[in-house]
């Protein structure tokens, strides 16, 4: 004990200085972030640049969309300064920010829960002399950033497009960032407080409470939307519809809502300077500054409250959650496995066993199937409601749109499937490699392992995709020929995407990483995503274009040699044949290379 440089009492006193502690955590964050960025640029430059590029592309697309929308409003509804323009902008801003207000509360609460109660870092920090509130604030920063990046991505093009469309003064652009940042802080603090207090008071029923609140919120939102869009079609966009809609969503303009302060602040800041002199506090820029003051003071107050609650509750809440009674999960629902086993009878026994094992792992991992269910469920809902296009014989516009939408639906299903194959199928062989002491010592060839993953992915994705595309086609009432082509394309997509993911996963496995999401985020996963997107575009284009021309020919009065039915049938067959050829190449080549690489692999 002679080597001591600071006694524990001194140490506690030094660390007791909250500014010292804050600086320490700030330095920790900076060092970590810098190391992360350096590593990203050194080892995953392609992925980083791809992410930045796609984000910029997405941002520009949103900006263009909002700009066109605001210009439409200006040119076709009312000029800035007129009543309808003001009412519409007010409605859009309040509804938009109020919705995001609710979403931010949920997302920050959920992310903070993960950060505080199931993170190894927090577990470690709680054993150090760091104050509870500092640990909470440290994780709260992460939760705020992760929950709000999407908000910034949406809000920044919206506000910029609005400013440009109404020719806003310079101070509007200066005020955008402080207004948005101070607003974001408030719902995130509310989410964090809900998370802490929920675990502090109701740790044992936390999931039930979250599900009930989320369910009620979704029900209320769904009812409001249904109430608005579920009216007679001829009434849509009439003056009465406009007034009724504004009235129905008047709750989003309640003065106590932070989203209202933000909306008012932005709208005021964008107003031109009044021509006639009036009281200073009524000038738009001062009103905008007052809104900003309101947001900042509430955000700071929220931070104070969060600090106080964290100090009082966090350690107790953590302890309560750690000591909650845990019910062991039983391996139930065996009938599902029996059905799967019966369906897999045609396969060789070893492949069947591997497929059944993967099926069990999938159904017992809610992270995998819940994401699948959410995305495909949302797509299904959209497809079920896509009955606005009714084919009118001879109407070339309708035929064009129906065909376009049906193939776009096909491409969307393919793109979503490619994210799943990248996220869940691509890492499968890497994860299997970590457990290779199981499979490696069994009388199963490595080729069988690779093939079993391919069959699992192809079969598992084909069924839901085929059903979704069929629903879309039925709702769009496309001709039988198109239905057939769509189903063929779906098979090509499922088989090709599965082969790409499994083949690349076998060629570029990562045995060091335990997290599938991190494996998917590596170079191989990014490459798989890019190649999958290219494959989808090629296959869908090859089948869609000939089909499109054939439908136009059937609906058009034009009679050229190009639109001759025999000529078009030929191109249809050539297109489908080429798509099949591309599908075969995209299936065989990655699998062949994958099997070869996997056979040569050493598990070190």
């Amino acid at each position, binding site marked *: 004990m002679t080597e001591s*440089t600071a006694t524990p009492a001194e*140490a*506690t006193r030094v*660390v007791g200085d909250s500014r010292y*502690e804050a600086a320490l955590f700030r330095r920790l964050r900076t060092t970590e972030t810098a190391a992360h960025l350096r590593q990203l640029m050194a080892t995953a430059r392609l992925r980083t640049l791809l992410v930045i590029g796609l984000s910029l592309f997405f941002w520009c697309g949103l900006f263009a969309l909002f700009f066109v929308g605001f210009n439409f409003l200006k040119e076709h509804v009312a000029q800035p300064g007129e009543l309808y323009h003001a009412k519409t902008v007010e409605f859009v801003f309040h509804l938009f920010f109020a919705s995001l207000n609710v979403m931010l509360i949920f997302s920050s609460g959920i992310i903070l829960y993960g950060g505080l109660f199931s993170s190894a870092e927090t577990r470690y920090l709680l054993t150090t*002399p760091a104050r509870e509130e500092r640990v909470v604030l440290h994780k709260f920063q992460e939760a705020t950033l992760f929950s709000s990046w999407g908000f910034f991505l949406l809000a920044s093009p919206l506000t910029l497009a609005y400013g440009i469309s109404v020719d806003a003064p310079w101070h509007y652009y200066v005020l955008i960032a402080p207004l948005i940042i101070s607003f974001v802080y408030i719902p995130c603090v509310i989410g964090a407080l809900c998370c802490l207090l929920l675990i502090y008071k109701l740790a044992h029923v936390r999931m039930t409470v979250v599900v009930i609140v989320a369910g009620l919120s979704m029900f209320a939102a769904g009812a409001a939307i249904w109430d608005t869009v579920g009216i007679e079609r001829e009434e849509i966009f009439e003056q009465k519809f406009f007034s009724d809609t504004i009235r129905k969503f008047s709750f989003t303009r309640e003065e106590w809502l932070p989203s209202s302060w933000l909306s008012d602040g932005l709208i005021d800041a964008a107003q031109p300077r009044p021509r006639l002199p009036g009281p200073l506090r009524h000038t738009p820029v001062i009103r905008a500054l007052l809104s900003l003051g309101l947001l900042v003071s509430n955000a700071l107050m929220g931070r104070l409250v969060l600090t106080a609650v964290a100090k009082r509750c966090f350690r107790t809440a953590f302890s309560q959650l750690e000591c*909650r009674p*845990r019910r062991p999960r039983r391996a139930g629902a065996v009938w599902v496995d029996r059905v799967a086993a019966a369906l897999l009878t045609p396969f060789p026994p070893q492949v069947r066993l591997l497929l059944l094992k993967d099926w069990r792992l999938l159904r017992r991992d809610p992270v995998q199937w819940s994401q699948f269910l959410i995305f495909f469920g949302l797509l299904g809902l959209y497809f079920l409601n896509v009955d606005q296009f009714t084919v009118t014989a001879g109407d070339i516009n309708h035929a064009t749109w129906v065909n376009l939408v049906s193939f776009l639906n096909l491409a969307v299903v393919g793109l979503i499937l490619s994210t799943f194959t990248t996220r869940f199928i691509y890492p499968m062989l890497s994860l299997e490699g970590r457990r290779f002491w199981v499979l490696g010592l069994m009388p199963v060839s490595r080729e069988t392992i690779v093939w079993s993953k391919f069959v699992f992915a192809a079969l598992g994705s084909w069924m839901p995709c085929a059903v979704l595309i069929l629903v879309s086609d039925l709702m769009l009432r496309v001709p039988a020929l198109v239905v057939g082509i769509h189903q063929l394309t779906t098979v090509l997509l499922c088989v090709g995407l599965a082969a790409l993911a499994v083949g690349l996963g076998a060629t570029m496995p990562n045995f060091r990483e335990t997290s599938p999401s991190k494996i998917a985020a590596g170079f191989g996963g990014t490459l798989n995503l890019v190649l999958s997107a290219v494959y989808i575009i090629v296959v869908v284009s090859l089948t869609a274009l000939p089909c499109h021309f054939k439908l136009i020919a059937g609906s058009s009065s034009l009679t050229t040699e190009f639109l001759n039915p025999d000529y078009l049938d030929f191109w249809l067959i050539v297109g489908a044949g080429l798509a099949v050829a591309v599908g075969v190449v995209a299936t065989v080549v990655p699998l062949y290379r994958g099997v070869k690489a996997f056979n040569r692999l050493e598990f070190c």
Partner: protein
Amino acid sequence: MIQFEGVSRSYGDTLAVRHLDLQIESGELFALLGHNGAGKTTTIKMMVGLLRPEAGRVLIDGRDVVTQVREATSRIGYVPDEPYLYDKLSGREFLYFVAEMHGLSRKDATVAIDREIERFGLGRFADELSESYSHGMKQRTVFAAALLHDPPVLVVDEPLVGLDPHSIRLVKDLLHERAQSGTSIFMSTHTLTAAEEIADRIGVMQRGELIFLGTIDELRHEYHAEGKSLESVYLSISGGAVGGATVDEVAQEEAVAHPTASDESP
């Protein structure tokens, strides 16, 4: 000094730790033995402030880990069974964070870090990101971090798992040396030979209860097992009961141990 005064903790209706009374003096190396789920890790978690006792209190150098948690944790060096390091920090950066968290100035931290890097042979990889470390390297870095502020209490959970023979020797020597210099050491382990070799006293925990507390010689004497290894004595006394006891089971055990007058009446 570490004191447990009537400490209990349950998980739902499972009693993980029952009425634990234990005192570990300065300079003593105490080893806690027990099956998986016997309550060892819960005991440690309460000591380092991760869990709060439902009953009783834990004192570290006289500081209550519930009411004076920061004063208590600043007196502890903790080596968990699964070492946590920041993936994107190098070993040296992590050690600086820990040292400064414990109030050491930059200059003192540098001296302490150099000392521990030398002691644990971390020099070769101290400036690499810790995501590339093996388990043994991580364990050594965590040991170094636990000793930076020269704590009067050292808590180690399964310190020898995953270490090579050289590192095991290093850790055993280190624990011995720290105990001799006055540090109270609380070690939870399944490595009975190590406990036999270095512990001053041992405790055997079963279903949340401390069923033996004393020296190894006292254990052999109590169970009439002179000359036998700690492993054979331990296996004979601990039986096969795994996990904590439920409330009902405890009630039944107490009914058998303390029969009421009506039970005793003919």
